[in-house]
């Protein structure tokens, strides 16, 4: 029996009971569509997060005092033990050619007030480079003035919310705010920002680093942020920074955190999640195999006389197996095609509704949905097909 004839015969049998075939096919289609859609959303989430990180800058390297083994943590929450000084920052700026910008950061919490209004905010001491390194945009006014790290003027750049709260209905630019026991002139206001890695940049006051350190009475920096020229230079930059600071401190007492590590661990988490939802979807696809098996068993029972006839006409056992197996495989093949198309359409619809969410079914998921559906059809179709082939022709014909 030729395979074309076999498929035609199987397709004929499936069309003989459209509703039943259709429902079984739908079961496979839903499973396949689930695989496609869930993985598309997982990948979409992954891509979305990556895009957010790219906004912050994947070339960012943070130098944190103390030898902490924190991986993937927010760059603002680890413990500081050893000193990291402004001199270190200057040395990095001078001797690390891969560093495009170096921003020393001192940080604390302080009450900022103007007239009768006051507000507890995060106070960041840094340089003009802080905004560039953090990819934060200035809304109005000017950035911190460049110049000697160790001497700062009493000026401040405010986050959008702080500015609005402290100067209701007035122009904050040129206004004087009190930060702890320091008086500083407002020279710039940040654009309203989203939250970046746990830091609300709407609720900050940015001072020259020397002023902030004096305000907090500290000699050590919170950290030093380095914007590496090119992503490819990141490892070289890391090495040079580590060596330079080890030489200056006499021991290796800093930790380097790159966005890479953070991005990578996020990406790993999301990839694992994608695999997990794909596995769940795959289970629903596998369950649809039970539907195939059920329908094929019913079909074999109903077509006993037909099987008996075919055997009497000279159909071999193997041919009977292949006829029923072909039906199961056709069901799962069509189901997979319909399901993949359905899933793709739903994903497109989602992207159309939420353009910011870059959902796209990964090729491996489409391929595995297809292969899995066929595998399920074959696996669950085999037992009914063999049952049909084992029927005794005399008994099969005798029963009406």
């Amino acid at each position, binding site marked *: *029996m*030729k395979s074309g*004839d076999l498929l035609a*015969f199987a397709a*004929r*049998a499936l*069309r*003989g009971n459209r509703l039943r075939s259709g429902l079984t096919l739908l079961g496979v289609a839903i499973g396949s569509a689930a695989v496609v859609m869930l993985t598309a959303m997982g990948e979409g989430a992954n891509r979305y997060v990556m895009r957010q990180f790219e906004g912050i800058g994947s070339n960012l390297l943070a130098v944190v005092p103390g030898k902490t083994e924190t991986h993937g943590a927010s760059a603002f929450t680890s413990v500081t033990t050893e000193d990291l000084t402004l001199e270190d920052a200057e040395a990095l700026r001078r001797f690390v050619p891969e560093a495009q910008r170096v921003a020393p950061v001192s940080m604390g919490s302080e009450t900022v007030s103007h007239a009768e209004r006051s507000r507890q905010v995060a106070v960041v001491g840094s340089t003009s480079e802080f905004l560039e390194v953090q990819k934060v945009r200035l809304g109005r006014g000017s950035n911190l003035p460049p110049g000697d790290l160790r001497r700062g003027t009493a000026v401040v750049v405010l986050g959008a919310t702080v500015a609005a709260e402290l100067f209701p209905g007035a122009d904050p630019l040129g206004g004087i705010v009190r930060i702890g026991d320091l008086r500083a002139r407002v020279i710039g206001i940040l654009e309203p920002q989203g939250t970046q890695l746990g830091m609300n940049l709407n609720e900050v006051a940015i001072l020259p680093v020397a002023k902030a350190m004096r305000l907090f009475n500290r000699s050590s920096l919170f950290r030093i942020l380095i914007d590496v020229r090119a992503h490819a230079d990141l490892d070289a930059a890391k090495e040079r920074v580590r060596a330079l600071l080890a030489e200056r401190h006499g021991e290796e007492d800093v930790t380097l955190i790159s966005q890479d590590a953070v991005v990578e661990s996020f990406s790993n988490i999301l990839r694992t999640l994608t695999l997990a939802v794909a596995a769940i979807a795959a289970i629903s696809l596998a369950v649809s195999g039970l539907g195939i098996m059920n329908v094929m068993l019913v079909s074999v029972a109903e077509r006993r*006389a*037909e099987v*008996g*006839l*075919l*055997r*009497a*006409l*000279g*159909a*071999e*056992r193997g*041919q009977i197996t292949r006829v029923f197996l072909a039906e199961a495989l056709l069901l799962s093949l069509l189901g997979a095609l319909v399901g993949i198309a359905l899933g793709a359409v739903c994903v497109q619809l989602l992207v159309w509704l939420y353009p910011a969410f870059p959902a796209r079914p990964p090729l491996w998921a489409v391929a595995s949905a297809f292969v899995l559906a066929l595998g399920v059809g074959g696996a669950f179709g085999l037992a009914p097909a063999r049952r049909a082939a084992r029927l005794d*022709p*005399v008994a099969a*014909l*005798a029963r*009406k």
Partner: protein
Amino acid sequence: MIRLEHVSRVFQVGDSVVRALDDVCEEIRTGEHIAIMGPSGSGKSTLLNVLGCLDRPSSGSYQLDGREVSALDDAELTLVRRHLIGFVFQTFQLVPRLSALENVELPMLFAGIPREERLARAAEGISAVGLAPRAEHRPDQLSGGERQRVAVARAVVMRPRVLLADEPTGNLDTRSGGQVLELLSGLNAAGLTLIVVTHDPNVARRAQRTIVLTDGRILRRLAPDAVTASVVAGGSG
């Protein structure tokens, strides 16, 4: 040429042993027309199944065209059925979703005959039973007589040596039954060995000989004019 020697077929039903065929010996010449009669449970169907290679004798020898087929395995018996034997059933056994033409194609489909040849031979077969205008009709669009004629066309499309008919007119009225019998007689006249199982003495009288079975044994062999309802019924007593 069919030769049965001491053929028995024994079934185990629960604790008891049923001898559906009990030491049957018979010879049927090529081209002969034989009727098999006997009451229900006399072993007619079992004999037909054995002759048709759907079933194997428990003991004894069955030679078909000089070849011992009682010892063949399932795969070999399948090939014997495919090439040497045609079946016609009381209930027609047409595949309901297929057209008349496609039903006639079926045996050739499983024999791997190419499509063009299949179509040509099926069309020829359908014409030979006078149903060319209805070739595209499905079984449920055909009368009983037409269905059985399609079944006859299908039974002979592989050009078998033996045609086995199990109550071929059992579900038909006299007129369409007559047409089917004419068809079968014509095939027999062309050299096909024809074996018909029937309850109907009128059907049996068309055969050259009638074998009457009772309790799995051959009770009588009758010439056509000796076949009467009473002789057959009396045999069961």
